[in-house]
């Protein structure tokens, strides 16, 4: 448990000192790998002995968050594998200084730390602190290149998420305000385990106001329309490994926070307010993002919007109670989206631009071209990839519980398909005009992710399925 949190923190400190060295990427990977192993051990323990509360009740691990911990650690690890050749290329192509490299490596680990902290903490306050920390860590990563565009993106990111997160804090205060009556003042009143036990007796009015603030607040980080505006910019301008973890992990963590709060509010309210809110946000997000995809010209913005769309879909899924599908979608989305960003990163290096019309013939680098093509198809919900499985479950669930919503979803999925696929196709096929990369590209993480997504599309191992069902039950 401690290792899961301690390792990235220590790694961050180490890399702050030596992040510019030649072996820094290896160290980065090694730290992430150890974190991953620790996460697996943790998961194993939870799987065997059930939920646990440790360290003076400050940390709480159940099947819901432990699965996200493993996912986060895993994607963080594979991203470091990708980041190694990518940043080497980047250091040559964009002439990064030692300071920037140090900053990058250490912030990367700090970012992982804050995400893991947000996932494992039992204290809603700490959850908030960690979320804010994650924002701060990534702001610096987004503005790493110090170009006008990246500064602009980072500024928007900072302000919008800052405001959002402040609203979430207000929501948290309101929850504390309500729980204090029941649990008494002091530390216990913000501990999720206690709140969960007492959620039935919390004051409904307070909690519904709190939930509005929380969903607007954390929803900003999730990227729910109309609070999403920071997301495409931040994805487009940061280094690609950061885009990969932003899309693949941070959004998940934010959604995790929303869902945790939803569980409480739902328990207190005894009505469908929280669900309806999530459904509404989800649908608006999916639809808007789909149409916005149509207009994109920058490859990373394109996939940024695609992340928005998928977060909307997940929010919708949790809203209608398709929790199993939502969790599965979280998993496959972060695997697929990060794989796509890996390919995109190299593709951009290969062609020297992020403008899609200038990218052609990526298939000349088979791992990149095929990675992007298959990844895009996977994210669009093409079987036999796992995204299809989760979308199938979400859609079928929606058809039974909220039939009116299915046309909206289908329109959105159709438009998203036309938008993304048309663009990806013209980038992957055709004659290549790019130049060779100075360092060999990272094919392994791409293939690994896609293989996992393919596997999940055809077969969900029983222990994973049990895990999901367990977590889905927890969510309610």
């Amino acid at each position, binding site marked *: 448990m401690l290792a899961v949190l301690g390792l990235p923190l220590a790694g961050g400190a180490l890399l702050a000192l030596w992040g510019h060295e030649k072996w820094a990427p290896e160290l980065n990977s090694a730290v992430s790998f150890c974190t991953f192993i620790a996460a697996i051990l943790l998961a194993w323990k939870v799987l065997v002995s059930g939920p646990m509360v440790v360290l003076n009740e*400050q940390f709480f691990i159940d099947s819901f968050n432990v699965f996200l911990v493993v996912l986060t650690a895993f994607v963080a690890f594979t991203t470091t594998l990708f980041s190694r050749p990518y940043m080497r290329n980047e250091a040559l192509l964009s002439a990064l200084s030692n300071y920037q490299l140090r900053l990058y490596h250490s912030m990367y680990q700090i970012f992982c730390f804050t995400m893991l902290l947000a996932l494992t903490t039992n*204290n809603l*306050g*700490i959850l*908030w*602190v960690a979320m*804010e*920390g994650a924002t*701060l860590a990534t*702001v*610096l990563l987004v*503005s790493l290149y*110090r*170009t*006008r*565009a990246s*500064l*602009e*993106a*980072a*500024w*928007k990111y*900072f*302000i919008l998420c*800052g*405001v959002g997160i*402040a*609203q979430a*804090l*207000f929501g948290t*205060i*309101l929850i*504390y*305000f*309500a729980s*204090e*009556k029941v649990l008494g*003042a*002091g*530390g216990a*009143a*913000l501990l999720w385990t206690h709140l969960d036990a007492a959620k039935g007796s919390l*004051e409904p*009015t*307070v909690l519904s*106001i709190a939930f509005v603030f929380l969903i607007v607040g954390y929803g900003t980080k999730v990227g729910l329309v109309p609070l999403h505006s920071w997301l*495409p*910019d931040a994805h*487009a301008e940061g280094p690609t490994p950061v885009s990969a973890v932003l899309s693949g992990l941070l959004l998940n963590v934010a959604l995790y926070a929303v869902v945790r709060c939803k569980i409480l509010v739902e328990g207190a309210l005894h009505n469908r307010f929280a669900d309806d809110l999530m459904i509404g946000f989800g649908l608006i997000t999916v639809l808007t993002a789909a149409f*916005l995809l149509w*207009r*994109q*010209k920058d490859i990373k*913005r394109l996939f940024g919007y695609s992340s928005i769309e998928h977060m909307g879909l997940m929010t919708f899924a949790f809203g209608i109670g398709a929790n199993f599908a939502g969790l599965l979608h979280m998993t496959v989305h972060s695997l697929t989206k990060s794989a796509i960003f890996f390919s995109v990163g190299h593709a951009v290096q290969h062609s020297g631009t992020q403008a899609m019309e200038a990218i052609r013939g990526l298939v000349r680098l088979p791992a990149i071209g095929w990675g992007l093509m298959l990844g895009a198809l996977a994210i669009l919900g093409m079987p036999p990839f796992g995204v299809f499985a989760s979308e199938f479950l979400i859609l079928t669930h929606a058809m039974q519980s909220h039939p009116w919503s299915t046309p909206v979803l289908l329109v959105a999925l159709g438009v998203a398909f036309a938008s993304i696929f048309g663009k990806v196709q013209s980038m992957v096929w055709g004659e290549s005009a790019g130049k060779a990369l100075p360092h060999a590209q990272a094919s392994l993480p791409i293939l690994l992710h896609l293989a996992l997504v393919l596997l999940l599309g055809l077969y969900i191992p029983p222990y994973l399925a049990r895990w999901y069902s367990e977590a889905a039950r927890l969510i309610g």
Partner: protein
Amino acid sequence: MPLSSQFINLLASILLLLAFAMLSQRRIRSLIRLFMVQGMTLAVSTAVIASTTNQSHLYYSALLTFSLKVVILPWILLRMIRQLNVEWDVETLINIPSTMLVGIAIVIVAFNLALPISHLAGTITRSTIGIAMACVLLSLLMMITRSKAISQVVGFLSMENGLFFAATSTTYGMPMVVELGVALDVLVGVLILGVFFFQIREKFESLDLRHLEKAEEE
């Protein structure tokens, strides 16, 4: 109503007044001063609550607030405007009189929302939650109407103040761990922003946010 409670209500109304003042203030330097006063008010109110309720950790809290929001942050901000040489801000979306009207509407909304809640509060300061909420929303409004980066940050920080006020006055403060974390985040955030300002100025030769509108989608 006990005296301390009345006093706190007074401080709360001062906060609200300050929020309006900030909303109408065009000069950045005065804005920061107002922010300082806001921090001061906050610290005082925290201390008063601490003394009334004998919540010792609130003293630390008050101290923290004071040092951070009255001393450190204004100092940093003032230094910055001196170095960056920005004095005036211009309102962008809405002019100031209309902003005030919107602000009043917001206060009404916030009060009405808080009405059912404040009955529940067991603290001596129950009616303040509406004011805290109004402060938060007013600060948000201020961020929307300003075009200079620094005034946005001030708005952001005053929002933080509103939150803090909500936390102390309605619930006698959050657990210490949380508060420390919040404070750390705010501090780091401001430091990062400082770095940012210089970078932005270096690249754009200005701190005007209208330069940061390039990422439109055609």
